[in-house]
């Protein structure tokens, strides 16, 4: 069973994110667990954002990939806690994002128990340009084409680029 489970893990780890296709769900930190319960392969995934519209596709892709690999009985479960953080994106995932022209996130803000301090100034986020490597970049918009990204521009090479925002 151990070898079979290792196979199932390997298959699940190849499934990619539908909106960031250069990343696997494992790179993204969305794939939380793959285990056997009786004859069933149980896969646990966690949503990035509450409204992430990719969850359904991720679920279907995992089921299809495991079915194709011969695992007939697959159960994909959602785990909500602990909440996903961009800190869970692997080093390999960060390299792939940058190679794909998307600036990877910095460290996520520390989560505290009390009231959340108001941030009235410009965002303190920084990111290097994924095209030319310059650190002289500015935020153009706090939101972008998907929930998980902001829009920046490089002052050196003038190219706009997306940045996975830290949460």
């Amino acid at each position: 069973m151990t070898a079979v489970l290792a196979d199932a893990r390997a298959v699940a780890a190849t499934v990619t994110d539908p909106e960031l296709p250069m990343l696997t769900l494992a790179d993204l930190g969305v794939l939380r667990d793959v285990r056997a319960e009786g004859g069933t392969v149980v896969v646990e995934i966690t949503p990035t954002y509450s409204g992430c519209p990719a969850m359904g596709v991720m679920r279907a892709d995992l089921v299809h990939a495991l079915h194709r690999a011969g695992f007939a009985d697959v159960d994909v479960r959602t785990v909500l806690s602990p909440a996903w953080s961009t800190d869970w994106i692997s080093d390999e995932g960060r390299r792939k994002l940058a190679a794909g022209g998307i600036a990877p996130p910095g460290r996520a803000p520390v989560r505290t128990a009390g009231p959340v301090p108001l941030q009235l100034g410009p965002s303190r986020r920084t990111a290097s340009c994924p095209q030319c490597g310059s650190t002289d970049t500015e935020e153009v918009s706090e939101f972008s084409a998907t929930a998980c990204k902001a829009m920046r521009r490089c002052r050196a090479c003038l190219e706009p680029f997306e940045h996975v925002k830290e949460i």
Partner: protein
Amino acid sequence: MYDALDHAHGGEGQWAFGTGFDEPLAGVDTTVPDGLDPADLGAYCLMLGDDALVLCQRLTQWVTAAPELEEEVALANCGLDLLGQARLLLARAGSVGVLGRSRALATDSIPDEDALAYFRDSDEFRNCLLVEAPNGDFGQTVVRLLAASTWRLAVFSRLRGSRDPVLAAIAAKGVPELTYHRDHAARWVLRLGDGTAESHRRAQAGVDAVWPLLADLFTATDVETRLTAAGVAVDPADVRDEVRDVLTLVLERATLTVPPWPAGQPSRGRLGQHGPELTALLADLQGLAREHPAATW
């Protein structure tokens, strides 16, 4: 032709108005904690879920009409986060059997959260009046977003310790999203209030329009009182000072006049007493699904 399309979908079309995703709480333990009335828990989830659903609908009304493309994307993204929170909360209400009259109208194959969103009338909605008011201009929209997300963030940050683990997990997930919305709205209020004479005038008009709606937000219903005592909910009276401090700070920094804080009164929205604006909003949101309740594609 249509038969072939239907066959391609495994012979079963997908309901036309839902996401087609699997149940959002699949695999989550939805057991009700000991000693808790499921009807109360469900009613509370409807309050928080309806706030998010209705505000999402208001925000997305700016799509194709916002002052600039980046802001349109921003408001739609805030709406998307809220829609996700609404979906989880309405699914939680459904998981404890709180479905109101929606099931009498929705066909069996429609998931609980979609039945609740599309097949309840306005008197069954439990959102506060703040979120259902029309958008007004962009200034009023960002003032309302600031007020609504400040209240919601204060409640959610406390709810992370709820005795209902599902509610606690939904809240913990929502906190960073709501922080982002609140700070984005606050920076806009600052920019407009401390901007040109015209932007200041409009932001102040937005504040004056939004402020009376705050009266609806800080008096607990019986459900909230019981659930707070049980360690599940947050008494909205407990977040009043925090919300007032944040809003006052932003408005003062924005050189706007802070109106007198409205006297607290029992929430009408939480009891299903809504204005005609909500009926009109729901007609937009629900009309097509109700016209064709069994439509598939």
